[in-house]
């Protein structure tokens, strides 16, 4: 479950911002902003992906680096939201 979620998120970022399927190009703990992988609009697109493709609503107050700044953090955030739901 976690692995497939992680794979989906990693794949989305790889394909849309690094344009590759090579998973070595994006470490699970790499900072998406710090490494310059996404900018402000990219982050909005990731949130749309989480909401529309994964089916988890991201509240405005949840848009913080602790939840979104790496693949691992996004996975942990989505899983915690699913548990609550």
């Amino acid at each position: 479950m976690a692995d497939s979620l992680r794979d989906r998120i990693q794949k989305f970022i790889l394909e849309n911002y690094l344009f590759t399927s090579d998973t070595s190009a994006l470490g699970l703990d790499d900072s998406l902003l710090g490494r310059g992988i996404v900018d402000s609009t990219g982050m909005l697109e990731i949130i749309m992906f989480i909401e529309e493709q994964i089916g988890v609503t991201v509240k405005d107050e949840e848009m913080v680096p602790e939840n979104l700044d790496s693949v691992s953090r996004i996975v942990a955030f989505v899983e915690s939201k699913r548990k609550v739901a």
Partner: protein
Amino acid sequence: MPASLVDLLLTAVARDPGKVALRRKRSTWSYGDLVRGAATAAERLRRAGLEPGDRVGLLFRNCPEYVALLYGALSARLAVVPLNVQERASVLVVQIEHGGARMVVGDPDHPEWAALKAALQPDVGALEVTAVDDDASVETFMQSVGASPGQALESPAVARDDMAILLYTSGTTGRPKGVMLSHGNLVANNVTIIDYLGLVPDDVGLTVMPFHFSYGNSVLHTHLGAGATLLLEDNLAYPLIVMQRLQNERVTGFSGVPSTFAILMSRARIDEFDLGAMRYLTQAGGAMTRAAIQRMRELVPSARFFVMYGQTEATARLTYLPPERLDEKLGSIGKPLDGIEIEVRDLDGRVLPPGQTGELCARGPNIMLGYWRDEEATRAAVVDGWLRTGDLAHTDEDGFLYIDGRVVEMIKVGSFRVSPLEVEEVLATLPGIAEMAVASMPDELLGQAVKAVLVLRDGATLDEREVKAHCRVRLAAYKVPKVVEFARELPRTSSGKIQRFKLS
């Protein structure tokens, strides 16, 4: 009028050295700190053998360290080349070589720093200064640059027309465009903007715009010139963090481009925050819809809303619309700033009457010296002291200006200019392409995005992802085509010229 931005800073520090100048996360620099940091930077750059007139590149996200290095360099009578933090090393190195920078100072944590450092010519020095995020950041900075503190920051003995900042608006292997801004340009524009915004030492601004961008550069220097406080952010990826700072740090002024306000209005629940201290909002960098302006005014009723217009080639600002005329003249970019003349001219250079659309041309003390090492481009852009902006505009009967479009083909993503030729040059290095054209496409958030249309050679295969990946390693993310289409041929005029507008 002061001779340089350094003189404005020295006036501010003399007024109140303990006043907070810059704050980034947990790092707070007073004016006294900033001046000490700048003096240390000046000493270090001189000791590296840099001489008046030399260029020094700076690669930093928005941070106090960058500001200290910039003012230090100006004090040492060097010209600063602020490097685009979103750009790739391969492009930056072209700009550094074109600009003839003798040294580059950068944050080793920047993702492109290692590649940039490795690509520099052996005679270009590289100095690493880490932007730190703690209470002792000034001392850390001074240790990091490795010069002895204590000497005072000197007012530079510069002439009005000495170059202070070299800002690259595009940088390709073909033709990098470096805008030469003089000390006189920067001071003149700064003083005028401080005046019409009414900036005072009690103001607290917050910027999310990068300092290599002329608007961000202007927000920085106007706040320091006024002796105000500027809070630094890099981006709007986390709108809530910005909103919390606006509220909790009682920010009085906030500047943005249309997409800045669009993001805040869509994801930040502005009405739930207390922004009662907000005195002004400024908007430039492209047209913002009337509905969006009205909505921002409703959400932040305490703020006067300034619509402004300008260009890097004019240092930053050429016109503004006085907030009290906003309802009456919504859609206008206002009137010229004090000391600036603007004319709307036809293709033959004749001044047009109100209501007729022509090219917006401007003259004043803020117009650039020219493009660095490109006399041909300079002659085309500045004619008899008048800057040809490339923007189409008209005036109304009251002399208010309205933008109608662009003369030259330039894509505006967010507020960053993207030259179609720059993207085409990168695409041309992909094998299998017979011909291609790059054009703009509408984008809901950013106004425009980049679109590429490719005609492949017989037998060649390429897919959209390969094309984007090729661009991504060679261009800043915002320049990478959002859409790549494949076509059998490109639309052309009878003379064979590609009709980009038909691709949009």
